């Protein structure tokens, strides 16, 4: 649980972050979204005190971050940035081992952890542990960067545009992987992006910032249905907001009782994808199956459409 209370940062006469307060639940992904210059990165960097706040407090799990030495605080918080920031003179394994080493883990534990993380991030330890960053592709470098941030099993992970340098296909995969790994470890993630689609894709909650102010901090659907400010409508776009809304609900969550003949969709598919399938095949109803392949309900065209309207 991260409590941010009246956090303000001023550089001379310029207020970059203005009296921002938000409460980030444990084990969730919170995405801070905004245009460049909105103060979103500064807000993130005040959480691990890369930027010292002018006023206000950050409390992580009941401890005021200002009471700890900055570098010790940072060792307990994961940190991943755009362009990965890998150390070019160190191997993949050494890069990932950075924080565990700082924390004084023994060699065997570090080795085991590096192996685990490489496997989790789909990099064969035998092939990649000894490689240098310049020998990897952009997507692999980025995965190592995120793996390094997870290395010391931090309760909190800060990410500043971590997927900004990736092409769209690799980015989508990286986002899905991050969700899976976050669920697996139960890490509390605060992620900064300028990409509203990324915010909707990843965020349990989304905080919208503009000109140093926090305009709205809510569930993604609420940003579409009840935007607190015209800027938020402009950011999310109104042309396809019904489709965006559908993309926030999964088939499993919307499934009705009953079953149907013919096609099936996985429970993890979004309603947007199911609707697209139905339109394409001309069917009016589809069976939802769970991860084990067992039917767990059905979805009708009308039922799906109802989810695309604000309620």
């Amino acid at each position, binding site marked *: 649980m991260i409590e941010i209370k009246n956090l303000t940062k001023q550089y001379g006469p310029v207020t970059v972050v203005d009296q921002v307060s938000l409460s980030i639940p444990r084990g969730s992904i919170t995405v801070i979204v905004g245009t460049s210059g909105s103060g979103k990165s500064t807000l993130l960097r005040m959480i691990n005190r890369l930027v010292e706040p002018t006023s206000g407090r950050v409390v992580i799990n009941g401890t005021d971050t200002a009471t700890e030495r900055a*570098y010790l605080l940072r060792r307990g918080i994961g940190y991943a940035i755009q362009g990965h920031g890998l150390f070019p003179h160190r191997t993949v394994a050494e890069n990932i081992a950075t924080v565990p080493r700082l924390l004084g883990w023994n060699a065997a534990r570090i080795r085991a952890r590096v192996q685990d993380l490489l496997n989790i991030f789909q990099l064969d330890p035998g092939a990649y542990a000894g490689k240098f960053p310049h020998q990897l592709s952009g997507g692999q470098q980025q995965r190592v960067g995120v793996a390094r941030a997870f290395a010391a099993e931090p309760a909190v992970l800060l990410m500043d545009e971590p997927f900004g340098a990736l092409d769209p296909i690799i980015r989508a995969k990286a986002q899905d992987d991050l969700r899976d790994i976050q669920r697996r470890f139960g890490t509390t993630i605060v992620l900064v992006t300028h990409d509203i689609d990324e915010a909707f894709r990843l965020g349990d909650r989304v905080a919208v910032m503009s000109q140093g102010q926090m305009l709205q901090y809510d569930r993604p659907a609420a940003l579409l249905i009840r935007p607190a400010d015209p800027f938020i409508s402009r950011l999310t776009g109104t042309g396809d907001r019904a489709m965006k809304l559908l993309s926030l609900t999964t088939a499993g969550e919307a499934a009705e009782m009953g079953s149907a003949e013919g096609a099936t969709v996985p429970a993890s598919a979004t309603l947007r994808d199911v609707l697209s399938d139905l339109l394409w095949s001309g069917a009016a109803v589809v069976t939802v199956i769970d991860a084990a392949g067992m039917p767990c309900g059905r979805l009708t065209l009308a039922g799906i459409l109802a989810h695309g309207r604000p309620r």
Partner: protein
Amino acid sequence: MPVPDGGRHRLVGDKMGKSLARGHAIDRLGALLCLIGLAAVIGLPFVVFKANRIVPGSARSLLQIFPPWEVLAFYGVLVLVAATALGSVSARVRLAAALIGVAAVTLAIGAAGDVLTPLGNKVVRVSPGASFWVLLVCLGLLATDAITRLRPGPAMRVLFLVLFAVVVGAVLASGLLDHLSVMREYEVNASRFAQEARQHVFLALGSVTGAVLIAVPVGILCHRIPLLRAATLGALNLIQTIPSIALFGILMVPLGALAAAAPFVTDIGIRGIGTAPAVLALFLYSLLPVVANTIVGLGRVSPAAVDAARGMGLTNWQILTDIELILAFPVILTGIRIVLVQNIGLATVAALIGAGGFGVFVFQGINQTAIDLVLLGALPIVALGFSCAVLLDALVETINRTAR
């Protein structure tokens, strides 16, 4: 579309490609070197004979020294080397030809010394003439060009250097060249030679070591504080513009005054003349390249890597020593290489203020118009500078290869 023949040949690895692409054409560098060598053989003396150390010498042609068939054999070897240099052969063959040429020229000059020196006579001087030096330079360039085309790795280049040093040492030790004037000067100055060699190395290495200890921290500060950067670089640039003799002279004043005012300073060897002002001057000249390269090297470290390091909880000291300095090291080392080679040359002038070094022979030789003595000082300086350049270049390249 058919690929033109020449174009296809150029695709074959570079060193082979060059000769193949040229086909039957004449190697341009080889042709130039052959022309220069030919002109030197025709127009300049190979050997100069002097009745004693300081009288003007008279040129001797090879035919005056050796029987005709030996002279013919010598020129035959040179013609073969020239033909190899002109033609398009592999770099290995060119290198071998150049080395055979060097051996032939060296043997000839050594033998000329033996023939021209009457038994037991220590007064006559036999010096290599201008055409010997020109031929040696041409052959040296031919060898260097061949080595460059072979693209040897750092370890191989160091091996070449060691082999070269061993061969030169063996030739000098064999007594082959003992009747040449330079070796005569060495014989007279043998005990001082070792001492001045040590002093020369001390002047160069000592000043560079001191400069690195000061300049790297100064460079780090300049990297951190931009305001300091302009002022520091400006001041160091100013020092760099002072001619070396002037700087040695300028430093004599304050150091002399210091020694006069505080006797204990004299006890530790600091005086207005001698080693102290020389090391100080060389130290001052060394600051700019090392400071500048430290700033450039640190500036090239990826800001993302530094940000990530700080964000993961490395302390400022750890960021400096574990990340920034290691990544900047190849560039800093390049700066050190520059000042080391520079100081090996500059230390020569230090002899003028009584600091010793190989410059002692150079300036004594100039004063006595004894060119052989000048060479006794100059040749080791060139060899020392060249060796340091090869060694440090190899080191820089090795580091660049491993840590990118």
